[in-house]
């Protein structure tokens, strides 16, 4: 079981994740990452977003 984690303290609001998969990721009005559901499915798009996150705010716990 893989779980997606978003660390809002580390996020710099680059928005790369939202661009990659806007169904799973969003930004609040300060630009900081939010997840659209508590435990989204970890598919290839989500893995791509995690890998390209500039700040390292996203991670997957296996």
């Amino acid at each position, binding site marked *: 079981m893989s779980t997606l984690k978003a660390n809002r303290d580390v996020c*710099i*609001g*680059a*928005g*790369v994740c*939202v*661009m*990659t998969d*806007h169904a799973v990721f969003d*930004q609040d*009005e*300060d*630009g*900081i990452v939010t997840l659209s559901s508590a435990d989204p499915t970890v598919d290839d798009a989500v893995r*791509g977003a995690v*890998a*390209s996150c*500039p*700040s*390292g705010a996203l991670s997957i716990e296996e």
Partner: protein
Amino acid sequence: MAGTTGTVTPELPLHMKRRRFDPAPELGTMRDEGRITRIRTPLGAEPWVVTRWSDVREVLGDAQRFSNAWMRSRPMPGMAERSPEEIATLRAGNLLTYDPPEHTRLRRMLTGEFTGRRMRRLEPRVHEIVESHLDAMEQAGSPADLVADFALPVPSLVICELLGVPYEDRAEFQERSGRLLNLSVPMAEREAAGAEQRAYMADLVAREQAGPGDALLGTLIREHGDDITTDELIGIAGLLLIAGHETTSNMLGLGTLALLEHPDQLALVRDDPEAIGPAVEELLRWLSIVHSGTFKVATEDTEISGTRIPAGDLLLLSLPAANRDPELLADPETLDVRRGTLGHVAFGHGIHHCLGAPLARMEMRIAFPALLKRFPDLRVVSADPAEERFRSFTVVYGMESLPVTWGGAP
């Protein structure tokens, strides 16, 4: 422009050398052999040059081991000697010279201004600006200078409106930022340009503090006025103004030339609305107009892929070499706008990843197809490479000018 002072043009440092669209072959060799070596720069510093994609990401991603803040305590090589207090004032608000937690504090005030949602609200105005410049080009008739008539003024007007900078002042601040970023200009003149730019911004910030407008500067003052110093506001405004018109403009100029030389890819970008998203990512990767991020300094004795880097040494990251690393993608030397590879480092990586990236992407997604639709038979006036004018000595690569023609004209 080089040569305005009669001084000898310095030799271009290795990390800025290009052959038209391509980074110097030597950078690719260093990358493929896994070599990290020191190079000479005209400023006297001898930074280590990092070229592999994974190494560049490692350095950019670790702000603790590789700091940006060194410039705030000692002068750049070649700069006048200054007290630490003077340097601190000059650097205030320049996010590129900060480490966490100071960086985090300022960046967090700005991120909300550059979200995808914010950018979508700006899109109609960017469409208008793009179309009005295309109208002007069409009315003036062929030929035109794509840089002066389109690639530069569109992002320049956009960033002026976004920040709240009077667009009438553009001739002045474009000249100043050109001087500031040109390595062939003597350091004393570059510093003078920086000081003039700061004085201009100080006036602007004072006016906004007296009566905050609706644009970004006014918003910052209204919402964060108590948490941000005047010097920081001046620095932020200056950085965003330069970053906003020196980058997207070069992507539009150089990117258009690249597309003109790949007609099948140009047709795709012009005709298929789905093509532009991936095409922008590929143009960003392949052109990598920012030669390197700012210098980093190692905060401790460390290693990068087995090469020892002593504490206090400077590092330069070659973004074009990293973006053509076979580790990032197959066939990296080829431009193929059909792939939109993520993970490229054209906007950097780590906490200093380009704040304006969503704006730059949005501007390009609108500007390229609009230009190519308006002038479907756009072509360069002269195919003679001797007449091509690349901006070699500038921190951001691009074209000085790009004469283009269309329609029945020769």
